[in-house]
């Protein structure tokens, strides 16, 4: 399964990861239910404000799910940044991954590759990580 995502969203996520550095940034991309299309980006607050952890604020999380339901949308992408490690799901990412239908996107600007950015996508289902291709559209 390939993640198809617009260049504008990739740029916005990279920009957000730089703006919130050294903390991890996070957010979602929503799309019409059943479509699997990443159409509406929504940055979320990392309530942990941490370089090694992220968590959506529980109040924002409820509001997000209500909004998604009201608009007949689904969560297509859940993204966050890694600031010092590669763009691969950490043990905690795998342990807490609760949306088997979502693409989990990781971006990293770790020093070894700076100023380049890694942008990778995965499925995380029952503790199993499967990397998938990312197709960026203009």
């Amino acid at each position, binding site marked *: 399964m390939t993640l198809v995502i617009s260049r504008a969203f990739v740029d916005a996520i990279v920009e957000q990861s730089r703006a919130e550095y050294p903390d991890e940034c*996070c957010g*979602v991309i929503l799309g019409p239910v059943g479509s699997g299309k990443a159409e509406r980006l929504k940055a*979320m607050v990392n309530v*942990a404000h941490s370089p*090694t*952890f*992220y*968590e*959506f604020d*529980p*109040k924002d*999380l*409820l509001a997000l*799910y209500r909004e998604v339901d009201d608009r007949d949308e689904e969560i297509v992408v*859940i993204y*966050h940044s890694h600031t010092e490690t590669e763009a691969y*799901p*950490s*043990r*905690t*990412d*795998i*342990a*807490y*991954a*609760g*949306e*088997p*239908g979502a693409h989990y996107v990781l971006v990293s600007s770790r020093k070894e590759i700076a100023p380049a950015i890694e942008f990778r996508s995965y499925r995380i289902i029952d503790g199993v990580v499967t990397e998938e291709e990312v197709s960026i559209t203009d």
Partner: protein
Amino acid sequence: MSIEVRIPTILRPFTKEQKVVSANGAALTAVISDLDSQFPGIGERLLENGALRRFINIYINDEDVRFLGGLDAQVKDGDSVTILPAVAGG
């Protein structure tokens, strides 16, 4: 006493893919017990050593139960309970 409980995708295998189920109980702990008797195994996904799991969020109507007394939070007929796994990681 009938409480509407909204089940997240990841727990729907327990509820035969039902998104909304009904449960009974005057406090959240009783609602969870009732859910677990209807859908065996779901309780363990919500509780750990008798406490709410850290990365499971439960809301009564619009309020996070952590601000309503946790498992002792009171529910009444017509209330809606929403279960959402935290979106979190490292």
